[in-house]
C-alpha cells in the first residue's frame, strides 16, 4: 500500500500533464488540466510549509538550548524568524507597522536588512570566481593549458579594453573569438550536454510514471 498509492499517484499526475500538453486548452477540458494540477501542487506546498517552520524552529532551538557550536547564529535565526513573522501576521487596521505593506516592520526589515544581505552574498561570488579560476587555469597539462589560453582570450574579448587590444592585433580577432569559440566549440558542447540531460530527464520521468524507478521513495 505504501508503495502502490504513490506509484498510482505519480502515474496519474504524469499522465494528466502529458494529456494537457497535447490537448487544446481553448476547446478541451483535458487541455485545461495543467493549471488545475499545478494549483494542487501549490495547495500541497502550503500545507508542507508548516513542516518547514517546525523543522527550522526545532533544530535551532535545540542548538541554542544545548549551546552547541555556532549557537549564537542559531539564536539570530530564531530572533529573525519571529521578528519578520509576528508583525506581518497582525492586521494592518491595528497599525500601519503591521502586515507586509509599505512602511510596515516587515517591509523595513526586508528592504534594509534582508535584501542588502542577499546582495552581499551574491557580490561575494566575484571573489569565489577569482579563486576558483586561479586553481582551474593553472597550466598543469595540455588540456589545462588549452583552457587557460581559451579563457584568457574570452575574458579579453568580454571587456572593452581587451577587445580594443585584440583588434589592435588583428581587426577581425574579436569576431573570430565570438564565431569559433563562443558560438562554435562552446555552443556545441553545451547543446550536447543539454540534449543528454533532456533525454535523461525524460527517461527518468517515464521510469517514475511507470513505477520502474522508485528510489525517490527510498526503495
Amino acid at each position, binding site marked *: 500500500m505504501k508503495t502502490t498509492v504513490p506509484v498510482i499517484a505519480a502515474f496519474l499526475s504524469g499522465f494528466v500533464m502529458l494529456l494537457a500538453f497535447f490537448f487544446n486548452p481553448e*476547446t478541451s477540458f483535458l487541455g485545461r488540466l495543467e493549471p488545475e494540477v499545478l494549483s494542487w501542487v501549490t495547495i500541497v506546498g502550503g500545507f508542507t510549509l508548516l513542516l518547514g517552520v517546525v523543522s*527550522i524552529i526545532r533544530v535551532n532551538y535545540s542548538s541554542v538550548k544545548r549551546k552547541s557550536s*555556532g549557537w549564537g547564529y542559531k539564536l539570530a535565526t530564531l530572533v529573525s524568524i519571529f521578528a519578520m513573522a509576528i508583525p506581518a501576521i497582525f492586521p494592518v487596521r491595528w497599525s500601519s507597522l503591521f502586515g507586509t505593506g509599505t512602511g510596515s516592520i516587515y517591509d523595513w526589515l526586508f528592504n534594509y536588512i534582508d535584501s542588502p544581505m*542577499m546582495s552581499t552574498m551574491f557580490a561575494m561570488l566575484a571573489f*569565489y570566481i577569482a579563486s576558483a579560476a586561479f586553481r582551474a587555469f593553472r597550466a598543469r597539462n595540455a588540456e589545462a593549458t588549452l583552457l587557460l589560453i581559451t579563457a584568457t582570450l574570452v575574458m579579453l574579448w568580454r571587456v572593452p579594453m581587451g577587445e580594443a587590444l585584440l583588434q589592435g592585433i588583428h581587426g577581425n580577432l574579436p569576431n573570430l573569438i565570438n564565431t569559433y569559440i563562443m558560438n562554435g566549440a562552446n555552443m556545441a558542447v553545451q547543446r550536447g550536454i543539454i540534449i543528454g540531460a533532456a533525454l535523461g*530527464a525524460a527517461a*527518468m520521468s*517515464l521510469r517514475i510514471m511507470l*513505477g520502474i524507478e522508485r528510489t525517490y521513495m527510498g526503495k
Partner: protein
Amino acid sequence: MAFSTGSGRLPFIFLILIILIMPVLSFAQADSGDTANSYFRIERINALVAMILFSVVILIYTRWAKAGKDLFIRKINGLDEVEEAVGRATEMGKPVLFVPGLQEIDEIETIAGISILGRVARITARYETPLLVPVRYPMVLAAGQEVVQQAYIEEGKADSYNKDIVRYVAGEQFAFTATVNGFMMRERPATNIYMGAFFAESLLLAETGNAAGSIQIAGTAQPAQLPFFIAACDYTLMGEELYAASAYLSREPLLLGGLKGQDWMKVLIIILILLGIILVSAEVSDWYLSMFESV
C-alpha cells in the same frame, strides 16, 4: 498489485493509452478540418511521435533487462567514489553533507538528487556516519526525511535515524547558501555531495567546501553551473549522469534497461543531426526542418 512492481500492467496501460487514444483523436480532428477549434494540438504531433518512440525503446530494454540480458554501463568515476568518500568521513569521524539542489520537488533534478540521497543514506547508516541534509523547500524536506528514514530502516539502523538529519534551513537562495557555508566552516564535513539543480550559489558552496578541505562530489544538469563545479569539486556528474546515478548505484536491471534505451535515442538523434547537416548543405532541407519545429 502487479503494477506496483514496475514491470507489470502499468507500462502496457500507458503505451496503449498513448499509442491508441492520442492518434485516434488527432485523426478525428484532421477529419473535421478546423484546426483552431480542434481538441488535439496537431502541431505537437512530432513531440507525440518522439515520445512514443522513446517509450517503446525504453520499455523494450527494460523487458530485456528483466529477462536477464547482460547490459554494459560505462564507468562513472564520481559515483564510484561516493562510498569511498563516505568511508573517509567515517574514518575521520566527521559528517557527510548532502545538498539535493535548490529547486522544488516538482523538478526532475531534485527527484534525481533525492534518489541519490537514498543511496548515500544507506551507506552512512551502515557505517553510522553523521549525515546532514539541508533543504530549501518544505516539500523536499518531507520527501528527504521519508527517503532517509527508509534507508536507515533497510540497513537495520532505525534507532540511529534522527528526524533532523534532513532539515529546512531557509527559503531564500542566499540565506540557504550562507547557512550551509557556515556549517561547512564550523563543522568541517569530510565529504560534501551536491546533487540537483544549482544556480549562482554553486560556486559559493563548492569553493567554501574546498576551503574547508572536504572531498566534494557534485552533479547537476544546469550547463551554466558545470564549469564551477568542475573547478571546485573532486568529481562532477554532468547532465545525464545525474539522472543515471540512481540506476548506476542500485545496479537494478530494470533501471539499467532504461539507461540503455536512452543511449539508443542518442544514437537516433546523432543520425538525425548528421542527416540534417547533409540536407541543409544540399539546400533541400525545408521539409526536414519543419518536422522538428516546436510549438
